């Protein structure tokens, strides 16, 4: 890994990259910035593994009769889901950008528990290696949702090994969340009040709450699944006296809040980018901050909307439907406030802002199609069809991955000390946007026409839309490979970045050198103004 990092070329001044060399200085580091980079490289690897499975799926779906055997396709979509959800999306922004930036943004020299931070990366890697081992041995075919009794009794694949991988990596997520919460509470610099915290920190704080409170539930669920599968405990399999729907309740009690683990950090990044490239304070700071907490809390109360057709009480369904509409409000508030932030701004179109535009558009569509699924009678028709696939890819890929890409570009100069080629980056952002829409928009139509998800073969009337989707996916793939190439190039050969290339506000740009030294600041930072004070106002203002 050390050979990939060209820190030898940045020699001007000691920073976290050139302070120490050799693999030990990376694998035994407790510096949150180096751990962030360890995460960055590992999750990028998992992203391309998960992406490779998606390529296999899209190839299979080019023709109604498929390219692969049924079992192969079933394993492809299962492993795509497991890798992307548990090993890419959940850690993505928090473990990389969050890890790197939260201590700097609050004015601290590291996270509260630096060694636990390193431990969480090792847990992530151990979990990931176990999951990859399961794949190498032939994989798993239960779907990422592991529904019983198929997973507990009927599947003949490596369910236990995969579940152990997910179980272990869950603790990585819990420890990261714990670290963030304690850091934000106890390590803020003088003057960094809660009302002055960047919205990036607010978003991650809300995410951390879910990670700490929700992840143990998936751990318990997977343990029960193991007990059922090995010891036939009779928890989920009706033949043994269990209840298969109980599994779904337990699974979604974590996995729906986990959806917010996967989107709140994206929203957190977008707030920073929109403010910077509009050169304006975020409109309605308090509302954007509190809406993150509201999403985290309400997110725990909506899991039953995955069970509208599963035979749960219809009255329970009505309650879950109502609460699901409610959780849409704080998301809408964020979108409105970002848009209002641009009003009378001074807007420029650097790459991070292009990704932010993409996020706002695609997340809006992803969020609004969520309302269709919250509407009971419509969900009965479209649940378990491609409509759902399109909806959550608009949120997870159109939202979270867009934000991740935007964030990586925005803070690339901070992390690497170098600039990336702007025109290539803008071009790639455009490719991603076009490829994404061509891939996933046809799936909304397919879904309402009735094509079920997880189908290796499909009726011929669905072929045209599937071919469009596969064509889009190949464009999208180019859009993801391009940044890999030019960012790797820029890390070695890019022009040196100035201290604050975007003239952005925030401790990480204004008071911490670029790239930062090991302990982030040369002197104790003191905060004297609100976040996003682009207009340079002297006085603290009352925010509405």
């Amino acid at each position: 890994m050390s050979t990939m990092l060209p820190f030898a070329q940045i020699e001007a001044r000691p920073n976290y990259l050139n302070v120490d060399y050799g693999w030990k200085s990376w694998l035994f580091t407790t510096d949150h910035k180096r751990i962030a980079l360890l995460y960055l490289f590992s999750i990028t690897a998992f992203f391309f593994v998960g992406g490779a499975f998606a390529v296999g799926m899209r190839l299979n779906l080019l023709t109604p009769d498929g390219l692969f055997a049924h079992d192969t396709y079933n394993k492809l979509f299962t492993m795509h889901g497991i890798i992307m959800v548990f090993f890419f999306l959940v850690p993505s922004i928090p473990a990389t950008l969050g890890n790197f930036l939260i201590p700097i943004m609050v004015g601290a020299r590291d996270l509260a528990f630096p060694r636990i931070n390193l431990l969480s990366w090792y847990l992530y890697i151990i979990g990931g290696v176990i999951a990859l081992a399961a794949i190498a041995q032939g994989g798993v075919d239960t779907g990422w949702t592991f529904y019983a009794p198929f997973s507990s009794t009927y599947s003949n694949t490596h369910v236990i090994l995969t579940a152990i991988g997910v179980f272990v990596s869950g603790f990585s997520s819990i420890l990261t969340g714990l670290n963030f919460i304690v850091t934000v509470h106890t390590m803020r610099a003088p003057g960094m009040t809660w009302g002055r915290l960047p919205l990036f920190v607010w978003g991650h704080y809300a995410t951390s709450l879910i990670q700490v409170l929700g992840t143990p539930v998936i751990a318990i669920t997977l343990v029960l699944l193991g007990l059922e599968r090995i010891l036939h405990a009779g928890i989920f399999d009706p033949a043994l006296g269990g209840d298969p729907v109980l599994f779904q309740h337990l699974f979604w009690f974590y996995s729906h809040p986990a959806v917010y683990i996967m989107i709140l950090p994206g929203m957190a990044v977008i707030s920073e980018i929109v403010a910077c490239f509009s050169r304006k304070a975020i409109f309605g700071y308090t509302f954007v901050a509190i809406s993150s907490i509201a999403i985290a809390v309400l997110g725990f109360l909506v899991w039953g909307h995955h069970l509208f057709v599963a035979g749960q009480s219809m009255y329970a369904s009505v309650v879950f439907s109502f609460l699901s509409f409610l959780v849409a409000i704080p998301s809408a508030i964020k979108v409105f406030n970002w848009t209002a932030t641009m009003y009378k701004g001074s807007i420029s179109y650097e790459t991070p802002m292009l990704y932010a535009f993409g996020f706002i558009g695609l997340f809006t569509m992803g969020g609004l199609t969520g309302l269709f699924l919250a509407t009971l009678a419509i969900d009965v028709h479209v649940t378990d069809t491609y409509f759902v696939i399109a909806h959550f890819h608009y949120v997870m890929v159109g939202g979270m991955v867009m934000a991740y890409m935007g964030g990586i570009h925005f803070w690339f100069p901070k992390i690497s000390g170098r600039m990336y080629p702007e025109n290539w980056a803008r071009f790639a952002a455009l490719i991603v946007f076009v490829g994404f829409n061509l891939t996933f928009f046809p799936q909304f139509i397919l879904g309402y026409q009735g094509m079920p998800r997880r189908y290796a073969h499909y009726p011929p009337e669905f072929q045209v839309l599937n071919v469009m989707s596969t064509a889009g996916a190949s464009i999208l793939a180019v859009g993801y490979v391009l940044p890999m190439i030019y960012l790797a190039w820029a890390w070695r050969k890019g022009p040196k970045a100035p201290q604050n290339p975007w003239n952005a506000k925030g401790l990480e740009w204004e008071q911490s050198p670029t790239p930062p030294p090991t302990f982030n600041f040369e002197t104790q930072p003191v905060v004297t103004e609100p976040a996003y004070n682009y207009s340079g106002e002297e006085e603290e203002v009352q925010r509405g």
Partner: protein
Amino acid sequence: MGVFDIFPARASAAAGNVDALYAFLLVVGIGMTAIIFFFVFLFAVKYRRRNADDPAPRAIHGSLPLEIAWSVAPFLIMLVMFAWGAKLYFDNYTPPLRDTFDVYVTGKQWMWKVQYPTGQREINELHVPTGRPVKLILASEDVIHSFYIPAFRLKHDVVPGSYQTYWFEPTKPGRYRIFCAEYCGTNHSDMGGWVTVMDPHDFAEWLTGGTGGSMKEQGEKLFQQYGCVTCHVTDREGRSPSLLNIFGKPVVLDDGRTVLADEAYIRESILNPNAKIVKGYKRDIMPVFQGQINEEGLLQLMVYIKSLSPPVSAGKESSK
């Protein structure tokens, strides 16, 4: 159905209602998207930075009235979606209590086995008449499946260990696809078939096509074979409750609760009789049949037991 058709074929009474609601959400969704896109685009162009050294604009910190407006207005629109969706959900998921044409469907990896009360069996094919409510009683032999007919806009999971119902009123003759919508293993994507909607006359003809022994007769045979007949005699003095005229009626239990004697209750009382004991009777009298009778046999018994409760006078009342 054309490749880009937004609405697939409609063949049930529910389909038009679901499509109307969907159209409402499409209008709201597209409208909201257009508003957001319009303002983002407008601001991005109108307020673009013209010179790199433009001074930073004046901060605008927010507006409480605006925040309230754009929280409350979407909430009110969502209330309409919620109420409309919930009303339709209850309509579409609550079968009429009487006068349904009942068909018994068992899902197993990877086929749908269908049996009619008159005894015909089909695999991956379902025939139904237009103009009257059809109720499917769904059971699974193994894992969770989901019975889905897009042209009816209805699906329901088929959960092992329980009965689920799926009812619809076919409106348009034709052949429409059945899918399994819940992933169920290797050949999940091949677990489909066709529903043939026929006009009542054609259907009657099809139904009298004839097979050996009706479902009720097969059920009666099982009723004897498993010895049910020895205790569930038809007068009130037996060791066990009479099964005459109980179907669809409330039953008072020994713990004081009252339950409806529907398919799910009868199934449970066969498989696990001690779960709900009728007031005045003892537990542990009847053997537990869990694992003794397969799903198809259970459905045949069900039809026989239902036949002991003669249909109420050609009523028209439905649950709604």
